[in-house]
């Protein structure tokens, strides 16, 4: 599904504070599987996730999404790939303040056009599915952590993406909610979606839902299981 070949991501290249966040990673992320990136803080998980999700371009190396080479795509096409292929769940959820939960879920679909009525129905359906349907008119800043996360997941799914990318999705949740999140992940995978999660939460990588755990350190892959 997604193939990385000798990918590097260097910040402040050529300057004294140059930092190699991702250092020659080659990885094949299979479709319809749950892959977890783990490793200590600063090991490059978020940086790698950003590359996988086409949010940033690698300093060197190649990335294929499906059979498309995305490293050399111009920004406009990258945005297109981002919104059609990926759904993102961020650590801080990053809902837009002041907008309602429903509007937040609809946001990724705006650039695609399409009927508004259909979009509202789809967004409301997703909120219902994740048990926050009754909060659809609530402003994002008034949601609890668990609600905000479920709204964020609904938003990630509104364009029906093949791949879900989540960065530390359980960092703000208690054990029960975290376990609940992994059940959602299982459901998404069973629908045939690919899920990539960066996390150092044991609840995540010990979950039976996870197909593969990739361990990182200093920007490199130091272990894969199975």
């Amino acid at each position, binding site marked *: 599904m997604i193939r990385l070949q000798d990918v590097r991501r260097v910040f402040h290249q050529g300057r004294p504070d140059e930092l190699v966040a991702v250092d020659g990673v080659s990885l094949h992320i299979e479709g319809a599987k749950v892959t977890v990136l783990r490793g200590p803080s600063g090991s490059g998980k978020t940086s790698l996730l950003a590359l996988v999700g086409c949010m940033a371009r690698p300093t060197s190396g190649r990335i294929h999404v499906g059979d498309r080479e995305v490293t050399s795509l111009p920004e*406009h096409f990258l*945005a297109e790939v981002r919104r059609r292929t990926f759904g993102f769940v961020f650590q801080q959820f*990053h809902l*837009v303040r002041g907008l309602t939960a429903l509007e937040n879920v609809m946001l990724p679909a705006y650039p695609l*056009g399409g009927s508004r009525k259909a979009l509202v129905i789809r967004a409301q359906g997703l909120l219902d599915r994740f048990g926050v349907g009754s909060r659809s008119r609530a402003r994002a800043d008034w949601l609890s952590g668990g609600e905000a996360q479920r709204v964020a997941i609904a938003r990630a799914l509104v364009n029906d993406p093949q791949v879900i990318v989540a960065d530390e999705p359980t960092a703000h949740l208690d054990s029960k909610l975290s376990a609940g999140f992994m059940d959602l992940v299982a459901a998404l995978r069973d629908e045939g979606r690919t899920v990539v999660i960066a996390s150092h939460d044991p609840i995540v990588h010990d979950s039976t839902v996870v197909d593969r755990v990739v361990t990182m350190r200093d920007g490199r892959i130091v272990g894969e299981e199975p």
Partner: protein
Amino acid sequence: MKRLHIPTWLERQRYLLDFTLSSLGRRKGKNLALTALYAMVVFGLASVLMYTQALRGEAMRILEGAPDVVVQRMVAGRHDLIPADRVERLSRIRGVQEARGRLWGYYYDASAKANLTFLVPEKFWGKAGEVVIGEGVARTRLAAPGEPFPVLASDGSVVILKVRETVPSPSELVSTDLVLLSEPDFRRLFGVPPDLYTDIALTVPNEKEVPMVAAKIRGQMPDSRPITRAEIARTYEAILDWRSGLVVLVLAAALLSFGIVAWDKASGLSADERREIGILKAIGWDTSEVLAVKAWEGAVISLSAFLVGLLLAYVHVFVTSAPLLTPVLKGWSTLYPSFRLTPTLNPFLVSTLFLLTVVPYTVATVVPAWRAATTDPDAVMRS
């Protein structure tokens, strides 16, 4: 190539506009204050431009009725009464079809605190002892037809005339302070002997002969000053242009400083706005869509400010007779105490104002967002 699909494009713009409106709603206080400030600047500029335009229109209407040449006598550099025998001499100059002695003068009406223009028309249709007054006079003096019209004569006596009727006129600027009366009444009131006139009006049918006629008059009567209609027109223009130029300059400075404030506000995108742009990009928005939202934002604010400002200016100038501008712009305000301008809306003026206000503001909103919108969206993952 990016293919343009019109229905999708329209739907997308609608979504983006919806998003813009709800964004604006979220920062209601700030945006309302900005729009109000902006509307005030537009109001000022539009008021001056509309007002001078309308005054110019009035002036041109006055000129249409003005004689081709007016001859005045000058004594020690001042306008003096002109001997009646010159009417005959002037009418004999080649090119002059007709010469007519005119009687007119100003009268300060202490009770109404206004200057009135007393004028003997070519053919006064009233009887001796009667006056016909302009609407403005009727307003300030509260005089209606049939009522007495007391005037303080030059010898100190009070002469009571009677209002015959009031006259409307195409241009209020002309008629408003006008008092028409018969020749004997005029001479009696102002103590003008029968062999003198205020000035002499000439009819010169061929416009091309006017300069020649004027030159001849200067030659034959060295103490007289011929004033042609073209000269009057130029004077009006000069006065109006100079005064409005001054005010426009001041307002342009205001606009500029507003522009700087706006630029500052827009370029110093708040952390919140920056974060929002990051989120939008991360969830799949393209730079162009983020910029489109910013453009809509600028357009909505500046367009509403433009329309509100324009509407207020229209009301200010044509409904309330520009009370905020009269002290500066109407040099003749003592002469013409109050008048209502004929409403006009010049499309050129409106489009100039539009280009001067809406376009720069929208650009000022979009350009600073550019930088925020072109950064890699992964930055948002680390905040």
